[in-house]
């Protein structure tokens, strides 16, 4: 039971990161029905951006971390800087690789997205090499015990940052003019355009926000796991997409819920003993998540919170 609760804590923490990435998938899918394969790689790039910004502050894995207000300042600047850079990257990708294909057959933007994903992956490889890159652990790790279960300060930071961003996003989408325009475009692009919504601008904003969230996810991922690598985007992208599908693609709350659920499932999968699966569940966690994806798609393709929509003719 203790082990179960402990894995639950781990699961919720990773789940919060997945949720942030899943939001980017779900928003883009909701608005232009495209699986943005490059999204996971934007997240990967963001972890590298974080390391670079830290380095600009003189912080590396070996140097001593700042404390107090300096720490908060560094973290805030890094967070906002990474979000901004990734957001711009997302908008540029949309402008270059997806917008020219707005009216092309469905397969075209999808293949273009795969192309962008390949490009970003190799950019990451050129930038930081082919090995794991260590991420400076600047946030002091304090362990709190709740009964037998422990939770670290980093876990708490991750969950708090993710929560704040999700609440902000929810507010933006449901309470602001831009958010209303986004929902209108997602429902019916042509009708929205007729009502005076600048569709291209709204799509660009969606990419901006989605990529910014991936940027934030990059920072908290680095703080939580302490290392990153150029192929990170692929696996995490797949997990996050599964999360988005689990929650119901196009649904923001669903993506958050799905992300946390996937994180928990992944953590619990590592409890599967060797006798069931050779080498234990941890070696199979990708397979477990994939099976989850298949099961959702077979039994509830609209996801947990999504609505069944008939295909547009």
């Amino acid at each position, binding site marked *: 039971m203790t082990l179960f609760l402990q894995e639950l804590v781990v699961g919720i923490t990773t789940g919060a990161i997945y949720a942030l990435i899943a939001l980017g998938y779900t928003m883009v899918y909701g608005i232009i029905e*495209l699986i943005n394969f490059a999204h996971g790689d934007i997240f990967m790039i963001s972890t590298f951006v974080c390391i670079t910004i830290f380095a600009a502050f003189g912080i590396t894995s070996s140097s001593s971390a700042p404390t107090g207000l300096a720490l908060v300042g560094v973290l805030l600047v890094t967070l906002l800087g990474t979000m901004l850079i990734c957001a711009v990257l997302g908008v540029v990708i949309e402008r270059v690789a997806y917008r020219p*294909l707005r009216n092309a057959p469905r397969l075209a933007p*999808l293949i273009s997205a*795969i192309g962008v994903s390949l490009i970003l992956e190799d950019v990451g490889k050129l*930038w930081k090499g082919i090995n794991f890159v260590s991420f400076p652990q600047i946030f002091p790790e304090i362990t709190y015990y709740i009964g037998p279960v422990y939770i670290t300060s980093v876990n708490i930071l991750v969950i708090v940052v993710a929560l704040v961003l999700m609440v902000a996003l929810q507010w933006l989408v449901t309470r602001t003019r831009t958010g209303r325009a986004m929902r209108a475009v997602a429902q019916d692009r042509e009708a929205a355009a007729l009502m005076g919504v600048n569709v291209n601008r709204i799509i660009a904003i969606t990419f901006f926000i989605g990529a910014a969230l991936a940027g934030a996810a990059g920072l908290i991922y680095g703080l939580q796991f302490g290392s990153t690598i150029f192929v990170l985007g*692929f696996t995490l992208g797949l997990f996050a997409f*599964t999360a988005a599908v689990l929650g119901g693609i196009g649904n923001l709350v669903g993506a958050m819920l799905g992300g946390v659920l996937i994180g928990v499932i992944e953590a619990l999968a590592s409890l599967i003993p060797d006798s069931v699966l050779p080498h234990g569940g941890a070696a199979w966690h990708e397979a477990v998540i994939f099976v989850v994806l298949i099961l959702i*798609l077979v039994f509830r393709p609209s996801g947990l919170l999504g609505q069944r929509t008939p295909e547009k003719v």
Partner: protein
Amino acid sequence: MSIANTLVPARRDTRALLIKWIVGLLVPVAVFTFVWSGEAIINNALLSLLGTGNVALGISLVVQLAIFILIFYATVITLAGYLVAADSGQRGMIELWIDILVFVVVPLLLVISLGLIIGFALCAVVWPLYFLVRRRVRQALHYTPPPPLQNLRILDAEQRADLMSRAIMGGFWFSIALAVVWLIADLIFYVSGALPTILLISAVIRTLILPVAGYFLGRLAGVIALRRTIAQKNGGNGESDTDRAGRRISKRRQLEELSTTRKREEARDLVPNDLPLRSTGAQRFYLILIVAFVLFYPVIDPFLFGFGTDGRLAGYGDAGYYVILALGLNIVVGFAGLLDLGYVAFFAIGSYAWGIIGSTQLTNILSLPPINQHLLSGLFWPMIIGAALIAAFFGVLLGLPTLRLRGDYLAIVTLGFGEIVPIVFLELDKYTNGPNGIVGVYAPAFPGTNWLSATPYYYLILALIALTIFANIRLRDSRLGRAWIAIREDEIAAASSGINLRNTKLMAFGAGAFFSGFAGAYHAAKLGLVSPDNFSVGDSIIYLAMVVIGGIGSIPGVIVGALAVYSINQFLLAQLDSLAADPSNPLFAIHNAIAHVFPGFTFGNIRNLIFGVLLVVIMIFRPEGLIPSARRRRELHAGADEQAEVGALDVVPGAPGFESEVRI
């Protein structure tokens, strides 16, 4: 003398045509014969037949070489006759010569001097440059080439006879020109001492035979060209067969009348034609040349590129399984429009199928005494089908849960599948030896062949490719293939037309996976081991790139795409890296400049970057790929033709005036 009359060009324009094509074709043929190896092949074969040379080739080699040489020159002479007959004479002489220079002679010279892959890679740089320059020059000169023939020209008996005589003249005079050039070249070689005296006899015989052969090959070309003409109808009025009352018109003919676009496309292939080099008639000749070249490649390779035949053949064998994979993936992605990003999984399954059975692995797992190696090796032949069937089974299995999903979900599920299957093989180490892989996989056995050299593998993969291409073409044109294409275009409309979506999609998955099983079994047997490292999910994307770059749904396009991607992937980048390591090479400085900014930069390191850029650029600027299928091109560029089509169809089919309306 009637023959003499047919051989002397009566009209001036015919003479111009003859000069145009004889010069145009003679130059590349001369380059092949004298600069490269045509002459060397013939002389070596003859010398070893006579037993006087210091090179003694086996009799089977000589026979193969002789067949190749005969096919090659006969095809070229016939092609000359065909082109002279099929040319409408609208396009200028110089224009054609420049085209032949850029598209045939330059690649030949580049390949001769730099090798096959670097040569073609440079062509890929030269050709776009040429297009750019040509467009600029044309703009500067305010010149627009006449558009290709737009109407169906009906030939009367006199014109047909003229066509025939032109073909004969083409074959005859081209052969004479070839014979004369060859004789002069041989005399020069003889005087300079490079040619043994005994071969002068063969030169004389050749000079005598060539014109006669040219005459008959020209006749053959004329027959081929005439089959592509539209003859006048018996009634004497070509336009009257649709509206003549009471006459039955075949269904097919009615359908043909309906599509103006198709008509226009067919008009481009009719004889006479403005661009005969690009017509499907001429493409048959290219196909014969390519097939002859590929089939006899192992024997002519030493003459073309010198030592190291075995290594090159091994490389081409590997390129071959990429071709099979691309063709298989093309069924799923190209025909049925289902984006499969996990194709590598089926390839892995096929590999492991033969890997486990074709080694001591299976008997070890079952704790049985090992089976005789010869028996197992012979088992390869049934197992190549077995591996394909196993892969197809998993293809259907993966298809089942994804049937109800839209294309994009499918992409992600297949991506996950491609990620999982290698993990399964890695972790189930009881059966697969995990990360160590299965070693000691047996090669196939076939009486009279030595599987330690690369040649039998070359022919094996050739046979598999031929089988795959044949199956692909038959599938594409079958009822099932048309159903796939219908699904690709509009799933809902297809379902409304009575297509069973579930079965059709499952068949696409199964058929696509089937061919990857071929490739997998071949791969395991050739490499002699199966390791999970050989199957990364990134490879699936590379396979997709082959299909997309070549042309989605186009069989020749996909083959070219696979070869291009394979060359970039396996040879070109490595070659660039080795060139960049040489300080005297200009690439050295470029490499250093980039490596200064990005430490660890090598050309091999950016292969995904290159493919990524290619994918994006092709999707934006040329979504139909390098060599598109006619249907796909029509779909993607429908807009321009739509107006004419609508206008034409305002007239009810069968009504008076309908046909004249359709014949644009």
